[in-house]
């Protein structure tokens, strides 16, 4: 197992370098003078520009700049200075990351629970009305833009019914409250954005779980279990679901980019002070180092998500641990 973890971790490293290279190539190929990109479009005295060119090595050949940048990012964790937030980019990201992790984590949880639940229910009542209703509802939800559902939810559930706050992470004055009340307040603010983000992505998972369940329910060992007299529930959850979840883990890992992308618009709609919001504000303020850093970090989240899915699979599937592949059919 330790060997496998090490191997998967090692496999993620070239991917990270690939992302770094891609970002560098994109920035290099952009029109205009790179010092202009760094400085934004502000009027700057020529001697300041010269100092910046010198400091960032902009007068050096691209390969040297690439290696320097790579070294700065990977070895020293230097991501530059955020002009719009007037602090190091690492600090700006450090401030925003917990909110994003909370939002994306909660959405992931809802995604897994709702996706699996809907898939199982649809398979259980295959062809009958719950299957058709759930299938139709997830298809419709899947076809709607996340930000638009967010706006509808704000319109109906926050300003209409007043059940949820329309945005932000906490109520005014929540800092002074006792921890329990503060946590409840946070969850109350989290419910709408995380619920929408999780539920809109759940359609893909539920359809996958449904078809896996149907396939599993038709297999010999499941039918043998029913024939032996195992209860319907035991067959459904104990035999069919357990075997359907294995390939679903891979899908969950693959859906991390969707959740991270979705969290960007969700954060903008719900005024959630996370990384997506940071990236968005940075673009409006032409603060490129922050945009670069958020792009890199969002990729790290994706790579970590895939890695985690791989490791979970390896932990539960003995075939993978034995190095036979399998699992992800």
């Amino acid at each position, binding site marked *: 197992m330790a060997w496998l973890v090490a191997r998967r971790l090692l496999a993620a490293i*070239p*991917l990270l370098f*690939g*992302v770094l*290279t*891609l*970002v560098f190539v*994109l*920035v290099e190929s*952009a*029109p205009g003078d790179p010092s202009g*990109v760094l400085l934004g479009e502000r009027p700057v005295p020529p001697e300041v520009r010269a100092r910046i060119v010198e400091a960032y090595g902009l007068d050096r050949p691209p390969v040297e700049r690439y290696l320097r940048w790579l070294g700065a990012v990977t070895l020293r964790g230097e991501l530059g200075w955020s002009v719009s937030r007037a602090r190091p980019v690492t600090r700006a990201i450090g401030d925003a990351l917990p909110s994003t992790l909370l939002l994306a984590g909660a959405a992931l949880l809802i995604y897994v629970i709702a996706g699996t639940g809907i898939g199982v229910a649809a398979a259980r009542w295959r062809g009958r009305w719950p299957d058709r209703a759930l299938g139709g509802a997830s*298809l*419709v939800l*899947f*076809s*709607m*833009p*996340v*930000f*638009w559902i967010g*706006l*509808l939810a*704000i*319109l109906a559930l926050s*300003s209409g019914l007043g059940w949820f706050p329309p945005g932000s992470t906490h109520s005014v004055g929540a800092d002074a409250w006792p921890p329990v009340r503060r946590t409840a307040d946070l969850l109350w603010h989290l419910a709408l954005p995380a619920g929408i983000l999780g539920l809109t992505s759940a359609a893909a998972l539920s359809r996958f779980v449904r*078809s896996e369940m*149907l*396939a599993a329910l038709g297999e010999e060992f499941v039918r043998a279990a029913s024939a032996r007299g195992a209860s319907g529930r035991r067959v459904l959850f104990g035999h069919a679901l357990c075997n359907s979840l294995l390939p679903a883990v891979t899908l969950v890992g693959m859906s991390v*980019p*969707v959740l*991270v*992308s*979705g969290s*960007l*618009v969700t954060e*903008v709609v719900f005024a959630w002070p996370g990384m*997506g919001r940071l*990236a*968005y504000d*940075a*673009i*409006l303020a*032409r603060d*490129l180092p922050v*945009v*670069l850093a*958020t*792009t890199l970090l*969002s*990729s790290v*989240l*994706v*790579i970590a998500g*895939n890695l985690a899915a791989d490791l979970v699979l390896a932990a539960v599937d003995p075939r993978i641990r034995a190095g036979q592949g399998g699992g992800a059919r």
Partner: protein
Amino acid sequence: MTRRRPLLAAGFLLALSAAALLGPLLGLRDPAAQPDGLVLRDLPPFSRAEAVRLVGEGLRYADEIRDEADGSVSLRRGVSWERIPAASLAGATPEARRVRPFFVLGTDGYGRDLLSRIVNGARVSLLVSLLAAGLAVTLGAGAGLAAGLFGGVVDGLLMRLTDVFLSVPRLFLLLLLVALYGPSLAGTVLVLGATSWMAAARVVRAEILSLREREYVRAAEASGASRARVAFLHLLPGAAAPLLVEGTIRFANTLLLESSLSFLGLGVPPPSPSWGNLIADGRDSLLGAWWIATLPGVAIAATVLAVNALGEALREKVEPRVAR
């Protein structure tokens, strides 16, 4: 039911495209016209406006109209009243000079007709998504074909490149590209296409790898057909069906991405608004005038739903073994 659904979806998409192309011919109002920013502001759906016909220059809108004894009319516009003498009014009787224009979907904050704007937005949104999906499928087919044909280092490099592109969340990548190149119509198409080719590449590569072992391809190779001939005449057509399915899904996906990008103000720049722009426009007046932001979203959802239904039907044709 299942048989009718794709037909219904195709019909809807055709009607939508036709309306988008022929908008003005269908008697829709000019989507950019602001006939009256004061009176026609934020009219809810299904409302009628009040107006009088003027000699020569069309309509004068009002919140309230009163016919005076001397044949002139008094109009209330907002809080102020104004008087229009009988000489500048067209039509002799009070009935003949009154009009009550109908706004099916209401108007936006500038008094522009929302229906025309949504139909006009379809043109931009559909065109951008179609071109971007086409670009993505072409790029992907090229990459997949090269990877499947040449194998070895080329395959390895292209597939690693696919992995790298898949590792960056699409919206963050799009944001970075827009930050570097600035928003524009052509840029949106390029950027959406250039970040959506990965699935097509994988599909085509897998098809090529399996097709290469088929008898007919081997026969063509054995009979001395050139590499290019085998690739374009024998392999690529074999991958056409799954590629079409992927293209349909990509189209739906791109439509959603484009709307997100435009909603953030980083997609298609005004004055040719896409559906995402329309929603963004309505966001600020969401509580006062809910229809401006919600109705374009209905158009997006309906279109994506229809495209997905078509893709689903295509997929069932192509891969009959998919469990239903």
